[in-house]
């Protein structure tokens, strides 16, 4: 089988397009690279949507944590502690068990039956866990940044007569983003790395449609040779990390565009601040 044919057959295998069965006998380099690459679609899907939803939720949660009112602050602190203090792996297991226990037929809310079956699928259930997880971590980052917004900025805003939402939107929030961005870049990278856990934590890979590591593990099990499949995943993730760094670097440049020389490249120090 030619490599082009393999790519046609397995290039979108992870989302159910193309060949039904996974290769059983042919494990050449092209097959492995193609199938693992197709698995990467899932990693991108989880990472992208978790970041997207997580960003807005994290902003709200950081505000809640900074609130002076205890009935807003305490729940926010509790949520952050719960998700930052426990392993993501356990969160996946726990969420899956929780979703499985929901009644099959759906829950009735105000006379409308809400289906629950989709929650046990990886695309929804695991995504929810990832969103909540990254929300907690990002909120802590944003909260830390919020606490270090310079006093002078706020005084200047007061002097201009800015208050409330306008002061937040034009002074506090942009500075907060500027301060948080390098750490948030690391969080984004870590989140993409964490997506590899999904299919190893109860969430079933429907019709063997899994992520990059799922297929790498499949090949390593079939060929008894970890020295090909795992390095392929590693290369894919190194490329993904580089792309992420450059994308977040662009945003960083934009955030700091008014500061000459401040928009330096983000120094990438992975995972260590998580």
């Amino acid at each position, binding site marked *: 089988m030619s490599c082009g044919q393999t790519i046609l057959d397995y290039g979108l295998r992870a989302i159910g397009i193309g060949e039904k069965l996974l290769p059983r006998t042919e*494990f050449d380099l092209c097959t492995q690279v193609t199938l693992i690459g197709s698995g990467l679609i899932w990693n991108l899907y989880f990472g992208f949507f978790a970041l997207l939803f997580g960003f807005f939720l994290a902003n709200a949660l950081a505000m809640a944590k900074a609130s002076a009112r205890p009935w807003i602050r305490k729940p926010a602190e509790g949520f952050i*502690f*719960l998700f*930052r*203090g*426990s*392993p*993501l*792996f*356990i*969160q996946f*297991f*726990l969420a899956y*068990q*929780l979703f*499985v*226990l929901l009644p099959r037929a759906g829950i009735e809310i105000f006379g409308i039956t809400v289906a629950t079956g989709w929650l046990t699928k990886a695309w929804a259930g695991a995504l929810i866990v990832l969103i909540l997880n990254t929300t907690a971590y990002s909120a802590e980052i944003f909260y830390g940044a919020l606490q270090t917004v310079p006093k002078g900025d706020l005084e200047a805003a007061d002097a201009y007569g800015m208050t409330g939402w306008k002061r937040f939107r034009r002074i506090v929030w942009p500075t907060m983003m500027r301060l948080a961005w390098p750490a948030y870049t690391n969080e984004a990278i870590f989140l993409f*790395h*964490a997506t*590899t*856990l999904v299919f*190893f934590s109860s969430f079933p890979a429907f019709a063997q449609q899994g992520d990059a*590591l799922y297929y*790498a*593990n499949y090949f*390593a099990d*079939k*060929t*008894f*040779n*970890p*020295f090909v499949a*795992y390095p392929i*995943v*590693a290369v894919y*993730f*190194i490329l*993904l*990390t*580089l792309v992420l760094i450059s994308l977040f670097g662009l945003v960083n440049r934009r955030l700091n565009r008014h500061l000459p020389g401040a928009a330096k490249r983000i120094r*990438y*120090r*992975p*995972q*260590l*601040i*998580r």
Partner: protein
Amino acid sequence: MFEYCADPKSLEGLVWLSCYLTSGTHMQFYASFGTVLLLLAITAPIALLFGFGGALAARSQVPPLRWFGKIYTAMVRGVPDIVFFMFVPIALDQLFEYLRSRVYCDTSVPVRQGSDFVVCAAAKLPRATSPEWMHDAYGFFLAVLAFSIVFGAFAANVLYGAMNAVPAAQLETAEAYGMTRRQMNRRILIPQMWAYAVPGLSNLWMILIKATPLLFLLGVEDIVYWARQLGASKTSSFAYPHPDWRLYYFLAILIFYLLMTAISERVLRRLMRHLTKGQATLAGEAMRKAAA
């Protein structure tokens, strides 16, 4: 465990629960918490040692050693740690068996035959005739090595940064006094770097705690394994039949980890306060002012 547990079918309520929670398999579940703590206790110092070696190697004057150090520290940057946890144990296992096969087996037989990895019985690790606990211990040993290598790379990153954070003037002064590089490292660099390394290392400790459930992926019978085993619904053919209780078992594990991180946070904060006392840093200055 208790006398009255002889016939669990006749029991009810709290008595049943007390028997259930002290059954033999539950004792193994409790012991597996010890496995996690053991892993932490063994891995943390080894990883620190690896990290120390890696950081020193990355600063070395000898090019091959420096390259090795740089690659080791860069290793964990772009690649998910889970990939390493899947890769390292099986790779090490095959490496050990390959090396043994070159000594104990007929070396004309290739190790890789198609999609198989074949070594003769004498080279197998652990030997097929070994008792069950040897197999468990070997699996645990591989897991410890995998954790140590990955977290050693993280620690190397932290320590490398800490070594660079030591003010250059300190090292230049040492050089001016005519110290050799070795003396400089031992007397100036290493004693001073710890204050810079502690925040990163304490962060690493938290990450290490939260990485321990990955032991399950490495095939070690850890708390996740037992929670899945014990929690799965049991039909009436079992001594203690019950529906799917995995949720409660995972809740117990969650609480265990929350406690671990809460306690660690408290201890590390104390340690940090102790270390910043009298340091010429912002935090140290703040403490001095608060005391005055």
